[in-house]
């Protein structure tokens, strides 16, 4: 496999967990709620996905459990932020630490388990296409599901009535209220749906990518997902591109190392994070502010409303 093909394959493989979580965070933020607990939802999803796959023998059941786990954790965030009016950023971090503790505690028994994980499936015909086939169509089933999820979410957000409610909740909550729609409920459902997707992202990490559970195994990819959602303006197709960009940044280091390229390992480690700063700088310079109106208060120090 050529260097570029391998890099792109690695980008899709490593980018998919980030993609799921960033799509989830996009829905939540569209509704006006930032969830820094995304990392926590991924952790819960990684453990739930792994543990339930180990118990049931079926990774699809595991992935469903991952979605449920991520949703449950994000509902804690949603409850405090929406009903108790706590600060969104601080609450998200607290929820993350809660998840870290709980998953370390309950995950201990699954460190040594083995699972029947998702295997690579070559899509007939499509996988034979040079380069594109290797990169996109020699992956695991959850990767293929994500290809369908991206346009579906776009349709949901921009072409469906519930999607309109979600966006209205984030942009102009008063409008939604005057239509007689319960703003908080819409926001809560968006947060829970976002958490479910982050949970699936974590589940993909443990059941389709690493085939393992270890405490704190998400290692910051949930925060990367939040960054992707922000700089991709919470738009599903842009989020997909952003997630693959970071998947590629993570995959680059070992690719260079096995070829004996003499670059300091610590410099390579910093690459994904340098990339965040560069991308945010470039977007910031354009002067556009794509954040929903409802989120601006969060950044300016006010409580969410």
């Amino acid at each position, binding site marked *: 496999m050529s260097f570029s093909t391998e890099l792109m394959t690695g980008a899709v493989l*490593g980018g998919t*967990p980030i993609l799921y979580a960033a799509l989830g965070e996009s829905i939540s933020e569209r509704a006006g709620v930032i969830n820094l607990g995304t990392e926590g939802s991924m952790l819960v999803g990684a453990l739930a996905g792994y543990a339930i796959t180990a118990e049931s023998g079926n990774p699809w059941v595991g992935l469903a459990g991952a979605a449920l786990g991520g949703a449950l954790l994000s509902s804690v965030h949603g409850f405090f932020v929406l009903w108790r009016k706590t600060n969104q950023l601080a609450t998200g971090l607290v929820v993350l630490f809660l998840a870290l503790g709980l998953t370390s505690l309950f995950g201990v028994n699954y460190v040594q388990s083995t699972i029947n994980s998702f295997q690579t499936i070559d899509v007939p015909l499509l996988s034979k296409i040079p380069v594109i086939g290797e990169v996109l169509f020699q992956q695991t089933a959850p990767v293929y599901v994500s290809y369908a999820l991206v346009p579906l979410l776009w349709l949901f957000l921009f072409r469906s009535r519930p999607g309109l409610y979600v966006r209205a909740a984030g942009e102009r909550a008063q409008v939604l209220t005057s239509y007689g729609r319960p703003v908080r409920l819409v926001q809560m459902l968006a947060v829970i749906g976002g958490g479910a997707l982050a949970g699936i992202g974590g589940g993909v990490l443990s059941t389709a*990518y690493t085939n393992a559970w270890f405490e*704190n195994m998400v290692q910051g990819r949930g925060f990367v997902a939040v960054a992707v959602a922000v700089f991709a303006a919470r738009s599903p197709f842009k989020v997909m591109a952003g997630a693959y960009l970071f998947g590629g940044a993570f995959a680059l280091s070992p*690719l260079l190392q*096995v070829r*004996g390229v003499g670059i300091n390992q610590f410099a390579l480690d910093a690459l994904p994070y340098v990339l965040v700063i560069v991308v945010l700088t470039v977007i910031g310079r354009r002067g556009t502010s794509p954040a929903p109106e409802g989120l601006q208060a969060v950044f300016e120090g006010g409580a969410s409303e």
Partner: protein
Amino acid sequence: MRQRRHARVGVVATLTAAVMAVLATAIPVTSAGAATETCGKGADTVGFIFVGPKNDYGYNQAAYDGAMALKKKFPKLKVLTAENVPENDDATRVMESMVSKGAKIIFATSYGHLDPALKVAAKHPDVCVVQQGNFIKGNVPDNAGTYFGTVYEPVYLAGIAAGKATKSNKLGYVYALPIPQTIANINAFALGAQSVNPDAKVYTVATSAWCDPSKQADAANSLISQGVDVITQHQDCTSTITKIANDKGVGVVGYHADASALAPKTWITGSQWEWAPLYGDIVKTILAGKFTGSEYNDNYRVGYKTGSNPFVQSPYGKSVTADTKALIADKLKEISTTGSPFAGPVKTQSGGTMFPAGDIPDYAAIEAANTQFVQGVVGDLPKS
């Protein structure tokens, strides 16, 4: 070992430590007794602290298993254990609490537990405190010591099996950080492979983390797509790489624990901890009142040459031939007596001399020399 601090710091650890700290302060600490002739004589209780969970499939589990084996060997001995003990003053409090419960022997099993262990030793001359893997600089107190094995010796033997198994002559090594112990392992693995297969090359990937399964997966996939057909690692958590290699039909050489069950198709061999004999001998020495002045009242390093190395070979997989096993048995005999994994000539990656022809370096010389890769290792160490 220093690495555990990074891998295991979690909320659970903090909570455990907090609970321990509360317990420790709640129980009055017994005052240090008058200086006794020697520590721990006739002790009825021993305490163990671990930096990680007791079932991590790796370093901490091995130490825990060693502690449990003491119960069998000394039925009257009470064994106290504490998991997830951080490498800071919390460790001091946990050990103090054990002392107040009657422990006269303390095993502090992580690299960073040394300073807290020395504090406890200074306060309680009647308690023997031994530490696993670190090094006491300067004067060694009468009631303290460190101990460790020579990990690169079984790794060298595993390298022989890998050198015999490879068809592409490309071996893969996933490691975390370029610390001397890891560099020695990679070099020993390469030298072992080259001793039976001069064309064997070891391709290295650093993950900068002791347990980041995603990075491990990326590393394993990159190595395999370069044609590597035998893979090994120096990581805290080892199952990701083991399972990926097995799924892709790539040979596996293990580290820390016998993971052959995870790679039924491609397991070759590996290295793993077996602390029970050494723990047993240390405790026996202490109970007899002979600790002070013994080899354990020092920085004790044991290898195949000097005693029973606590780092041993893992069982062989089914693909390993009888010839290879016999060859490794011969090499084991050789490095246990007159030889060394680093017997000269050993050349550095850049072509310089690490050990000249005919040189049989001792353990100290090997520890000092392993700051760079040997010839045949592909990879770059960060310049400091």
